C-alpha cells in the first residue's frame, strides 16, 4: 500500500509538469489549430535561462526563496520573449497557408531550437544549480515527498489558477476565447486578432518555461534535447483532456503522469513511453473529443 501511495505522489508531481506544458499546447491549438511542436523546446529554453540566471546570481548569495522566485519569473519572461519572436518571425507569415505548411514550420522551429541549443550550450548535460536544497517530508505509511515536489505541485497549481483567471475574467481572456471561436467574428467585433494570438503564444511559452525551471530544480540536469519527449507527451496529455480545454489539459497531464508511473511500478517499465500513446488511441476511439472535450456536431 505504501508503495502505491508513494507512486501516486510521484505520478502527481510528474503529471503536474505535463499539465503545465500541456496548457501552452492547448491554448495555441485552441486559437490557431496549430500543433506547436516547438513548445517542448521552449520548455528546454526556460530551463536554460534559469540555469544561466541562477549561476549569475550565485555570487550574490541571496536567500534561496527570493532567488528561486527571481529565477522563475525572469526565465518565464525570457521564454515569453522567445515565444514572441517565434510567433512573429516564423508562424505569422504562414498563418494563411495550409495547416500542413504551418506544421512543417513548427517542426522547423523545433529542430532549430534543438540544434541551435546544441551549438550554443553544448550537447553535454548541465548541472542546474540547487537554488532550493532538497528536504524530505514523511507523510506517514512510509510515503515521502520532497519540498521540491511540493513546490512543483504548488507552483503549477498557482499558475494554472492564474491562467484560468486570465482566460475567464479579464478582457484579454475574453478576447482569446472569442478568437478561438472564430477569427473573423472576433475581428469584426474589433478584436485585434494578431495581438491576441501573439499574447497567447507568449503566455503559453511562459508556462512552458516555468515547467522547465521547476523540473530543473527538482531534477538538476538539463540538456538541449530535454524538451522532445516531455513536449510530445504533454501534447498527448492535451489531446487526452480535450484539446482547447484548459481544465482538460490539467486533467490530461495528471492522468498521463499517474498512468506512466503506475505502468512502471506495476507493469513493465519499458512500456512507459508507449503507454501515453496507447491511452491516447483508446480515448480517441471511444471519446474523440477527449475526456473533457465537447463532442461537436459535424460541420456541413
Amino acid at each position, binding site marked *: 500500500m505504501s508503495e502505491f501511495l508513494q507512486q501516486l505522489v510521484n505520478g502527481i508531481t510528474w503529471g503536474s509538469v505535463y499539465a503545465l506544458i500541456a496548457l501552452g499546447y492547448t491554448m495555441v491549438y485552441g486559437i490557431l489549430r496549430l500543433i506547436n511542436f516547438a513548445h517542448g523546446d521552449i520548455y528546454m529554453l526556460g530551463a536554460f535561462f534559469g540555469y544561466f540566471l541562477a549561476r549569475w546570481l550565485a555570487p550574490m548569495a541571496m536567500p534561496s526563496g527570493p532567488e528561486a522566485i527571481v529565477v522563475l519569473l525572469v526565465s518565464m519572461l525570457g521564454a515569453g520573449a522567445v515565444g514572441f519572436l517565434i510567433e512573429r518571425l516564423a508562424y505569422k507569415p504562414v498563418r494563411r497557408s495550409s495547416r500542413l505548411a504551418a506544421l512543417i514550420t513548427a517542426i522547423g522551429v523545433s529542430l532549430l531550437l534543438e540544434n541551435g541549443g*546544441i551549438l550554443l550550450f553544448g550537447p553535454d548535460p548541465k548541472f542546474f544549480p540547487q537554488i532550493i536544497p*532538497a528536504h524530505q517530508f514523511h507523510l506517514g505509511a512510509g510515503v515521502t515527498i520532497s519540498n521540491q515536489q511540493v513546490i512543483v505541485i504548488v507552483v503549477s497549481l498557482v499558475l494554472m489558477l492564474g491562467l484560468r483567471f486570465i482566460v475567464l475574467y479579464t478582457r484579454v481572456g475574453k478576447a482569446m476565447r472569442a478568437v478561438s471561436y472564430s477569427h473573423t467574428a472576433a475581428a469584426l467585433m474589433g478584436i485585434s486578432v494578431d495581438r491576441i494570438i501573439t499574447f497567447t503564444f507568449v503566455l503559453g511559452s511562459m508556462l512552458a518555461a516555468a515547467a522547465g525551471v521547476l523540473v530543473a530544480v527538482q*531534477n538538476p540536469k538539463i540538456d538541449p534535447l530535454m524538451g522532445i519527449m516531455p513536449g510530445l507527451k504533454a501534447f498527448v496529455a492535451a489531446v487526452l483532456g480535450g484539446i482547447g480545454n484548459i481544465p482538460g489539459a490539467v486533467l490530461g497531464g495528471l492522468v498521463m503522469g499517474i498512468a506512466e508511473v503506475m505502468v512502471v511500478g506495476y507493469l513493465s517499465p519499458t512500456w512507459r513511453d508507449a503507454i501515453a500513446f496507447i491511452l491516447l488511441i483508446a480515448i480517441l476511439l471511444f471519446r474523440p473529443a477527449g475526456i473533457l472535450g465537447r463532442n461537436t456536431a459535424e460541420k456541413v
Partner: protein
Amino acid sequence: MKRSPLALVARAASLVALIALAGCGGKGGEEKIVIGEYGSITGTDATFGGSTRDGVAVAWDELAASGGKIGGLNVAAITPEDDEGKAEEAATAVQKIVNQDQAVAVIGEVASSRSLAAAPICQNAGVPMISPSSTNPKVTQAGDYIFRVCFLDDFQGWVMANFTANNLKLKKVAILWDVKSDYSKGLKDYFATAFKGMGGTIVGDQSYSSGDQDFRAQLTALKAKNPQAIFVPGYYTEAGLIARQARETGFKGPLLGGDGWESSKLIEIGGDAMNGCYYSNHWALDAPDSNLQHFVAEYKKKFNGSEPDAIAGLAYDATRILFAAMNKLATDDPKTFAGLSSKNAGTDLRKQATAKLRDEIAQTKDYPGATGKITIDPNRNASKPAVVIEIKDGKKMFNTTTYPQNTAS
C-alpha cells in the same frame, strides 16, 4: 510511360554532378595521408561524438607539433563526419570517408549500433576501422579489418559482478537499465549472468529511456524489493539524477555502474548522492601512470582546463595506435607505406598498403596508452585490465584493478 527511365537517368546524372561539385577538393592537390573519423556531432548522442573528436584532436595536435608527417608524408588533419547519432547516417558518412575522401583508416564510433552499421563498409573496402569505445562483442565480428581499443561488455559485466559479490560481499542486487541503449542492455545481461553464477540474486529489474528526467517510479518499485545495491549500467547523463532520486526514496546502499558513468559531470550532477558508489572504468584519473597524466595535461591545456572523460581517452589511444602502426609500416616497409598516399587512391598499391596497415594494427602489443597497456588479441579486441572506481567525499578514488580472466595471475 516510356519517359520514366529517362527521367531516372537524368535524375541520377544531376545527382552525380551535384555531389561531384560538393565533394570537390577530396582528390588531387598535394600528396598526403587521409584518416577518417565519424561520430555523433549532432543528435541525442552528441556528447559522445564530441568527446571522441576532442580525444582524436589531442592525438593529432601531438603529431602536428612534431611536424605532422609519418614516413615523410603529410597526414591530413582529421575532421569528423557527423552521423547525427543514426545508424544509416553512420553508413553514409563512412562511405564518404572511405570512397570520397579516400581515407586509409577510420576512427569511430562510440555506440555499438553505429559501429555495426559502418563496419561492413570498411570491411568491404579493405580499410581498417578502429572503434575507440564500442563495447558490444558483435562489433569486431564484422570482419578482420575491424578493431577496438576498449574492453568488452562481457568482461566489464563480469568485473562488476565479481566486485559486488567478492569485494563488497553483497548478495541481493537490483538492476536499473536504459532500454534505449544497446550498451546498457548488453552490460546488464552480462552482469546478471555473472552475478548469478557467483551465487547472487537479482531482486529487481527496471528500466528507463535515456533522456528521462524522472526515475522515482522505478526507484520506488525497486526499493520495495530491498536490494543491497542497485546496478545502473547506463550513462552518466542519467546516473547522477538516478543517484539523487534514489537517495530521496531513502535508498542508502551503493549504486554500481559501468564505464558509461565516466565523466566529470557525474559528480557535479549527482552531488553527495554519489558518495559510496562504485563503477568500472578504463582508467582512474588519480593513477600515477605517466601516459595517462600526459594525456590529461595535454587535454586540459587544449580545452581550457576541462577534465577528459574515458571516451576521449580511448579516442586518443585509438588514434595513437593507428599512428604507431603507420610509423611501424613506414620503417619496416617504406615501399608499401607509400601506397597510403592520396595519389595512390584506388590502386592495387593502396590495397596492399591498407592490408599491411591492418596487419600492423593487429600486431599491437603492450601499447602504453592513456587507458592502460593495450594488446590487440586475435579477435581484434583489446585485452586490457579494468579498474573499479569508488566515489568518496565527492572524489573518484581508485579502488581495484581486475585483469582479464585468462591472463590474470
